[in-house]
C-alpha cells in the first residue's frame, strides 16, 4: 500500500519506496537509491518522478534536481532499451577503449547520449566502470562485457537485437 495517492510507480516499487524512507536515520538519505530505482522503473527520471520523490522524502523538487543533475548515471530523458556504456578511462583507453567507442558510434549510427531511431540502443561514453583488469570494457544496462574487440561488439549487438541479451534492470 502506497502512502502517496496516485503514485506514478508500480505497486511493488511504491511499496519499496514506502519502506526505503524508513530505513535510514534521516529520510533524505533515501534520495539517491530512490532515484536509481525510479530510473530503472521508468527508464529515466521524469518530472513526475521528481515531484513524487520530493513528496516522499519531504524535500523540495529543487533539492531533488540538485542531486539528480550531479550524477551522470541518472538521466532525465529516456534511453534506449539497451543502454550501451563504453568506458574510455585510463585502462580502457590504453587498451583501445576509444576504438570500441568509435566502432559503436559507427555501428549504431548515434553519438554520445543519443538513442537509435528504433529506440533499441543508446550510447554513452562513461568513466571507469571497475572492470580495468579486463579492459576495454562496456556495460549494457547492468550487464558487463569485457576484453572487447570490434568483432565481439558486433556479436553482442546482434545478440541484443535478437532479444537474447539479458535485459537486466
Amino acid at each position, binding site marked *: 500500500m502506497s502512502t502517496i495517492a496516485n503514485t506514478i510507480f508500480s505497486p511493488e516499487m511504491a511499496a519499496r519506496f514506502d519502506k526505503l524512507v524508513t530505513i535510514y536515520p534521516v529520510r533524505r538519505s533515501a534520495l539517491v537509491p530512490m532515484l536509481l530505482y525510479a530510473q530503472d522503473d521508468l527508464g529515466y527520471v521524469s*518530472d513526475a518522478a521528481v515531484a513524487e520523490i520530493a513528496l516522499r522524502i519531504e524535500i*523540495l*523538487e*529543487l*533539492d531533488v*534536481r*540538485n542531486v539528480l*543533475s*550531479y550524477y*551522470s548515471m541518472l538521466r532525465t530523458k529516456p534511453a534506449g532499451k539497451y543502454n550501451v556504456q563504453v568506458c574510455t578511462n585510463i585502462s580502457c583507453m590504453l587498451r583501445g577503449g576509444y576504438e570500441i567507442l568509435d566502432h559503436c558510434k559507427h555501428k549504431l549510427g548515434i553519438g554520445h547520449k543519443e538513442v537509435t531511431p528504433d529506440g533499441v540502443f543508446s550510447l554513452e561514453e562513461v568513466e571507469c566502470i571497475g572492470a580495468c583488469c579486463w579492459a576495454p570494457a562496456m556495460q549494457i544496462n547492468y550487464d558487463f562485457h569485457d576484453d572487447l574487440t570490434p568483432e565481439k561488439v558486433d556479436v553482442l549487438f546482434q545478440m541484443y537485437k535478437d532479444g537474447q541479451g539479458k535485459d537486466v534492470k
Partner: protein
Amino acid sequence: MPDVTFTVDGNKLTAPAGTLLIEACKSAGIEIPAFCYYPGLSLQAACRMCVVRIEKMPKLQTACTTPVAEGMVVQTETPEIAQARKATLQLLLGNHPLDCPVCDAGGECELQDMTFKYGAADSFYAEPKNHREEQKWSPVVYFDRPRCILCYRCVRMCGEGMDVFALGIQNRGSSSVIAPNVPAQMSPDDLAHVDCEQCGMCIDACPVGALTSGTYRYKTRPWEMNHVATVCTHCGDGCKTTLGVRSTSDGAEIVRGDNRDKSGINGDFLCNKGRYAFDFANSPDRITQPLVRNSSGVLLPVSWEQALEHVGKKLRELRDTRGGKSIGVVGGNRLTNEEAYLLQKFARTVLQTNNIDHHRTADYVSFAQALAGTTGKAASQRDIEKSPAIFIIGGDPTNQNPLTAWNLRSNVRLNKARIYIANTEEIKLRRNAKAFLHVAPFGYSALADLMSGDDSTLESLVQPGTNKQVALDFRAALRAEEEVVVLIGSELRGGDLKKVIEFGTKLPGRKFALLSDYVNSRGAADMGLLPDMLPGYTPITAGSNLATEYNIATEPGLDMLEIFDAAGKGELSALYVVGANPVARFGVDPAALRNTFVVVQEMFLTETAALADVILPAANLYEKSGSVTNSYGDLQQVNKAGDRAGVRTDFEMIVRIADKMGANMRALVPFGKGLHADMGQTRGAQSGEADRHAVWLTANNLEPRLSPFDPMAILDEINRLVPGYSLLRLQLLSGNDQHLSPAAPSDLVQITNRRDLVLPANDGLFTSGTLGRYSAMLADLQQNAASRTAAAEQTAAD
C-alpha cells in the same frame, strides 16, 4: 568565551575564543579577501580566496573556517599566498567574461577588485569560455551565468536567510550552475524562473555581477549616483535604505535602492519593497502643478501662489463663518513626525478644530494606554534580533513585516531563540517556531484570556477537534521563559490588546511591540493625529502641558467616520487631507463631499484627490527630511534623496497655508528665536539642506532654525512637549536609531469606550496601500506571482 591571543602579520591580537580568523582580522583592520564567506550564513569554504599561512599547519588554511587559537601565528599576505590567490582567481575566471565595463557590479565588485589586486586577468587556460545568455528569472532577478563564481552565497542567503530555498546548484565540476526552482521545462514560457519572495537579497549577497536587479541593471554606474541613506516608506518595520540618486532635467531620479549602509536596524536586510518599490517617485503620473477646480468643475493648473492664496482665504473664511468645528483634517501614515505634529497643531490652533484623524493601521492608543505607568516594557526592533524568546500573537511578519520576520529567523538561526506563535492562520513563520498554536477563527480574545490565566474560554480558542491540552502546554512553555518579547499583530486591538499586555506587564522580563503597516503609522498616532488625543497619547480633556500650551478647546473632535458622516449631513464646510486616501480606504460616497471645500495634498490623482477642489502636489518621503518612528517606537532620520520639480513637502505646504490664513507663524513653528527670517524665500525641497545647516549653526553657537520651513524647529518642540519623545539629537542626526516608548500618562483620565476605528491594512509583499498602486514594479511582481500561482494550479490539475 575567554579571550585568546594570537599574532597576525606580526601584530598581537586578542579575540574571544571561537571567533573566525577572518572576522578577528577584520576587527583589527586586516582585510582578508573572501568570496564565499558571508557573515551570518553557514560556512562554505568554496572559493579558497581567504587562504592564509598558519605556522605549524601543513598547507595554506582558509581563514573563513578557522577559529582563532591561543598562540596562533598567521601570515595573511606573502608571495606564497599571493600566488595561491592568483591561481584561484585564474580558476574562477575560467568561464568568466571579465566584462566589467558593461557589468552592473563594475566598480563595486569583489572579483574585479581582487583580479586587479593580484593581476590574474590573463590566464593559462586556452579552453573556450562557456558562454550562456542572461536569464530573466523574475521581473526583479536576472542571472548572468558566465559571471557566476559559484560561491553559493545566493543559495545560502535564499535558503538560510530567507527560508525560501528558491535557488539550488546543479550539475558538477566546471559545468556547475546556480539553478532557480522553476526549471525551464516546467514553465509555460520554457524559461527558468524563481518562484519566491523577490526580496533581492541574493542579488545583494552576490559578490559579482551574476545576479542583477531588474530595476537597476544597465541603467547607470555606481559612481554616477549620489547615495542617500534614508528610511523605507513602505511597511512599519523601518528599514534603513540607501537610495542611489541621479540628476535629471526635472529633479533627481532614484535609480536604485539597496542596503549598502548596513548600519541600520535592518543590518543586511531589505525586502522587495524597500529595494525596488521606489519607482512611484519617478512615475510620469505624478501631479506636479497645483490644480484648482474652476466654476465649471474642471481642475485647472494654477501657480503655487494662486493655489495657496485660494486655500488660505477659503479656509479662513469657512473657519470664521461656520466655525472651526465644521472643518475636518485627515493626515497620512507616511508623513514625517514633524509633519504629523505640525498638521495636528495647525488643525487645533489655526483651523481651531479637533476633527482630526488618520487611517489607523494598528491600535496604538490602546497599546500606549496598556503600557501606561510602566517603563522599559516596549520592545525595539533590536530586541527581535537578540531576545531569547519571542511570542507572536496574530500578524504575519513574513508577508507584512518582512524585516521583523528576517530578524526572527536570524535570531533562531544564530542565537537559537525560541519562537512561540499563536495565530488563526498557519503562517509561514511557524516553520521556525518552537511551538505553534493554531487558534480558532476569532479566537484571539479567548487567547488573551488564556494568557491571563482564565481557562473558561478554552473551548473557543483551539481549532475545533483539537485537544485543549495543546493550548495549556503552549502557555506553560511560554510561562517558563524568563525573557520574552511579545509581538502583537494589528488584528488585536482594544480590550483584547489591553488584556494581553496588562497581564504580561505583571510578569517580569516581558516586553511588547505592536506591528503596523506603513513607515510612520506609529508616528502618526504618537504625534496625535487623533480627535481625542494630543501628541504622546495625552487625553485632550485633561489640563496637560500640551493643552495649556496650545490653549485650545478640550472637547474631543470627530473621528474619521464622523467626519464623513458630518460631510454627508452637509455639516462639514472644509476637509483638509494630507497624504491619505480616505475615500477609497473607508468607502466614502463621493456625493457626501459635494458641499465641502476639499483640499488634498497628494502625489497622484487618487480617489480622494479626484474629489478635491484644490490639489497641492506633494513630495514623498524620499524627497524630504525629518524623522519617522517605526512600529516598535524606533526613531530614525529621514534624508532627502529624490527631487521632482513642481512639488513641495507637506511641511512647507502646511506652513504656507497657515501663513496665508494669517496665523501667528512664530507660535506655529518656533523658528528664529528673535531673529527675523525671510518668509518669502522658499527652501522647499531643500529642507534637507536647512537641517544640515542648522546642525552646523548649533555646533557653532549661532542661531539655527532661521526659517519656518525648517522641520528641526518642530523637532525641538516635539522634544520639549511630547511625552516619551525626549530624544537624543546626535543619535538621530548621525543616522542611528533610538528607541522611544511613549506611554499614555497614567495620572490622566483614560477615555473608555472609544470607537474602534482600527483598520489593519494587511499589505503583503507586493502591495503597499494606495502608494503601491503607483509602483510599476509592484504591479509587475503581483502579475508575476499571479502567473506562477496559475501555472502551479495548472500542473496540479493535470
